[in-house]
């Protein structure tokens, strides 16, 4: 059974996509058909960003599912990059990417662990076949001791784009 969706702001300066979804299950279990919000919609809900409060500071981590694209450096490949950018280093980030082709899961990166960083990235790539592609990500972040909440997690889809090989 699907859990209720929450909006998670995914705003970056350019090319950002809003993420939708609070499920943390495997990619195939994530809500298909969920569409990415526009950046403007996401920016109207800043209080939905994953963040942690300390006495004198806030760490905000912003997820982003980039558009799937033709890989620049590996010919004949479609790639999607997902990122989590935090305003300060955090002890631990787990980040996972998946790629869908015409609505079917074609690649799951598996979880990547990043320690002591303000930034994490993962990707999912497959051999190119002209079709509609959509990226997905999930993340889990642990904030430094003393922050509340101690951790955060979410998942969601990016834009659907048609790619010609």
């Amino acid at each position, binding site marked *: 059974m699907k859990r209720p969706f929450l909006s998670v702001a995914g705003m970056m*300066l*350019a*090319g950002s996509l809003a993420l939708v979804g609070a499920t943390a299950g495997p990619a195939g279990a994530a809500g298909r058909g969920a569409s990415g919000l526009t950046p403007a919609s996401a920016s109207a809900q800043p209080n939905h960003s994953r963040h942690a409060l300390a006495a004198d500071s806030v760490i905000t981590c912003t997820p982003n599912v980039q558009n799937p694209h033709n890989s620049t450096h590996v010919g004949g*490949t479609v790639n999607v*990059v997902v990122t989590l950018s935090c305003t300060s280093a955090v002890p631990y980030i787990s980040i996972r990417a998946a790629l869908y082709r015409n609505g079917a899961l074609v690649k799951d990166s598996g979880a990547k662990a990043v320690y002591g960083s303000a930034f994490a990235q993962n990707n999912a790539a497959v051999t190119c076949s002209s079709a509609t592609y959509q990226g997905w990500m999930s993340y889990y972040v642990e904030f430094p001791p003393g922050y509340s909440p101690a951790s955060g997690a979410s998942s969601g889809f990016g834009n659907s*784009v048609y*790619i010609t090989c």
Partner: protein
Amino acid sequence: MTTSSNALGVLRDRVRQLDAGPPAGSRADQRLEHAASVLQQYTNTFMAERAGSPALLEAAEADAVVDTSAFLARLGAVAPAVVRGPLEQQAQVWIGMARHGGRPPSSHNLRPARQQAPSVTPWSGTLFTSSTSPLGASMWRSYLELYRGSDLYPLPWHVWSVPAEGRVAQITGAKDWVSLVDRYPRRVDELVYPDWEAVATDFDGVHICLRAVVSLQGFSYVSSRGVTAPGYWDVETTHWLRWVFQRPRLLEVVGS
């Protein structure tokens, strides 16, 4: 055809993103990783969605916007060869992936330019290098770090020093790129590409400086020969058109 205000806005956003990071206290090499992280977002599908098709700019205007970047100015003060050139030919690095089997680069990596499909890069399977600098590892090495663990660039990575000695065209910004395309045009349909076979008659390599990558990535430009095809480099890069290297020396094996 007219230039696009959307396109100029996207370029300004790119500069703002560069200037926003990396986080305070970052190591020198993380500055190149930050730049690679920003630039890789500007993919073909992103540009089509946000900047229009073609995302057309005037070279002088674009270079002027890029020159407002405080991030690039700081980086250029430390590593001028990476940001604006000229290329430091003795500081070139080539990185072999798992599929290269740990072998150093050789002239076999260079394929003939003849009969290739039109492209903003010389040819598929091209031999390209990136520069080490006082910032540490090359920008390509920093880019790969973003992909550590990915099967797109499978480990191990063999990092080879490949000192070069050749005639290199310096592309420091959009104006230089337009000049190159104007001088060596290859028009196909509505777009103009460099005629790499013609470029190779005068040069051994073409250095795309970081300042130029920021100006060029994903954008088309107005040239006297028509509208230039957009290119995607992500990192400071030199494309080599013939073998001009001294004996490669293994610097590092990552993930063996």
